[in-house]
């Protein structure tokens, strides 16, 4: 186990390194306008452009530019090209909004995903199953940002039932915090709940054909007990895996949702930086997001081995 974790950590570092190089290359090797030119503005004198180039080191060889940038990422000295803001501070500022969004909607989607999946599987083929299937598949077939826009229009602008997005700090006013986050939570949860209920349903249907279920029934256990203790429990293992991966990916910021509800989290910062082709924040956010993806990938593997003793920890895929 210990050796596995060490190898896993080394793999994580290697992947993060590759991700950072790839990000750097996308913005530097593919033909792109000169950042100094864009920072100076359209009508800038060549002298100004030259001085910005020199000051920011855009004329250094690329490997050196890369190393300088990475050093600043880890010392917290990274400054954005536009607005000249400290990148790390801005990311830390965005964490509460993004994490509130992710954790809150994860609670909602796990609850409804498991509930609907369970009901669907228990009543497979029945009316309830069909209705839930329609709802779930429709949920995963919608463009999320579109659903967000429509909910915002009808529940906020037209009827003023919910306030329009914008993040209110939890410590300032917990009620307002939740009130402002309800719509983003629901929007995000609809997508994932639909997906998870589908996965759980098919897992449970598969599990019902297993021998241990027949054994449980033969022992005379009640149908309810068989379903909840034997079928559901075993079917939840893949859900845990999925949850880890999805949740990890979300922590890096939900770009569209945050932008539409102006939550001002990491996703929105990413969006603004991308629009300005502002490499330093993009680099930092990509690494931040990739870190959680890689971390949760590893956690999922460890959890999997713990939940399912048949799995052996030997393949060190990061």
């Amino acid at each position, binding site marked *: 186990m210990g050796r596995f974790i060490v190898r896993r950590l080394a793999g994580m570092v290697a992947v993060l390194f590759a991700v950072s190089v790839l990000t750097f290359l996308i913005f530097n090797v593919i033909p792109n306008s000169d950042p100094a030119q864009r920072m100076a503005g359209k009508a800038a004198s060549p002298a100004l452009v030259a001085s910005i180039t020199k000051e920011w080191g855009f004329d250094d060889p690329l490997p050196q530019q890369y190393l300088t940038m990475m050093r600043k990422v880890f010392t917290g000295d990274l400054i954005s090209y536009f607005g000249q803001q400290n990148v790390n501070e801005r990311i830390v500022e965005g964490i509460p909004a993004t994490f509130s969004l992710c954790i809150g909607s994860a609670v909602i989607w796990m609850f409804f995903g498991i509930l609907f999946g369970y009901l669907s599987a228990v009543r497979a083929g029945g009316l309830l199953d069909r209705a839930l299937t329609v709802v779930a598949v*429709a949920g995963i077939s919608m*463009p999320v940002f579109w659903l967000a826009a429509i909910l915002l229009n009808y529940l906020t602008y037209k009827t003023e039932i919910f306030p329009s997005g914008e993040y209110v700090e939890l410590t300032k006013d917990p009620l307002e915090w939740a009130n402002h986050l309800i719509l983003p939570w629901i929007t995000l949860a609809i*997508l994932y709940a639909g997906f998870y209920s589908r996965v759980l349903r098919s897992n449970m249907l598969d599990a019902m054909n297993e021998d241990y279920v027949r054994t449980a029934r033969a022992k005379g256990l009640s149908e309810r007990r068989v379903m909840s203790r034997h079928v559901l429990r075993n079917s939840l293992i893949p859900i845990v895996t999925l949850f880890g991966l*999805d949740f990890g990916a979300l922590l890096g910021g939900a770009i*569209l949702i945050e932008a539409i509800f102006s939550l001002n989290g990491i996703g929105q910062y990413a969006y603004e930086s*991308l*629009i300005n082709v502002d490499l330093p924040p993009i680099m930092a956010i990509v690494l931040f997001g*990739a870190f959680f993806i890689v971390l949760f990938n590893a956690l999922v593997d460890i959890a999997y081995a713990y939940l399912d003793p048949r799995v052996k920890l030997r393949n060190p*895929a990061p």
Partner: protein
Amino acid sequence: MASEPNAEVTPVAAGGPWHLAWRRLRRNRVALGFLGLFALIVVFVLAAPLWANEVAHTGPNATHTLEKIEVNGERREVVTREGKPIGPVWLGASGKFFLGADGRLGRDEMVRLMYGGRISLFIGFASALITTVLATILGLLSGYNRGWTDTVISRTMDVIWAFPVMLLAIALGLVLAVGGLQIGPLHISGSSIWIPILIIGCVSVPYIARPLRGQVLSLREKEFVEAAAAQGAGPLRVMFGELLPNLWSTIIVFFTLTIANNMLLEAALSFLGVGVQPPGTSWGTMIAGGFELLTSAPLLTIIPGTMILLTVLSVNVFGDGLRDALDPNSKLRLEAHAGLAAPEGTAV
């Protein structure tokens, strides 16, 4: 999937696995119904020039800002002085502005919806084809050869997997929309729809290549592979002659579900302005355009989004049915879910 005419008369065990799959699919009325819906949508977008030339008499990018049209005998402005576009007039103007105008520019929403659908469907289809072909080749190569080939391919996949997909796609879209793309002698301009097609096609590869590789890893231990190798079949022959036929059902299912996912990703990218570039129109760019008039003309957002929903829904339901038909023992189910877990959730 050729079906023999008398298949139903001959009881039991007629035809091969494809035939059986087709029979199972034919019994799944829901899946077939949604396939029908998908076919209707395809007909709808293919009829775009017909509607544009014969009924609406305008093109998807023709502006009608200062014009007036006669709706049920009453003259109305296409775009009011305040910049509010005309709403749906249905057949009031003999087919012109059936769904109203799209905004300040006064373009015919119905015509744009039909032409935009062509782009959305084409991008979904073409990018899914790229994803599936690349993923199949990479999955076969890494699963069958193992060793350093596998290491290189798998590690590359890991890097793309670890990259926040939305960020990667937006970054690529942004950079390539400015400078275009040069692949050898081939130059793709920044406004070409091949840019989003390539981006979406490539970023989705790991989610399919990984599960395929897993399947190849278990298949390569089977006796028939050993038998083929003993007969002197080279690695290419084994990969494409022996292993590939065993992967077809998985590949077809993944292909269908990838169309659905890629269409959603295209919509998201176009909404953010890094997908289809103007004057090109897709349902995603139409939602983006409608979003600016969300409170005054919500239909301009609702209509193109509903088209995406219906298309993706029909592809998803049909894909589900296809999976059940091709793999009644549902081994594929989990893999399909595990493989598509991330892209489903990435366009957020």
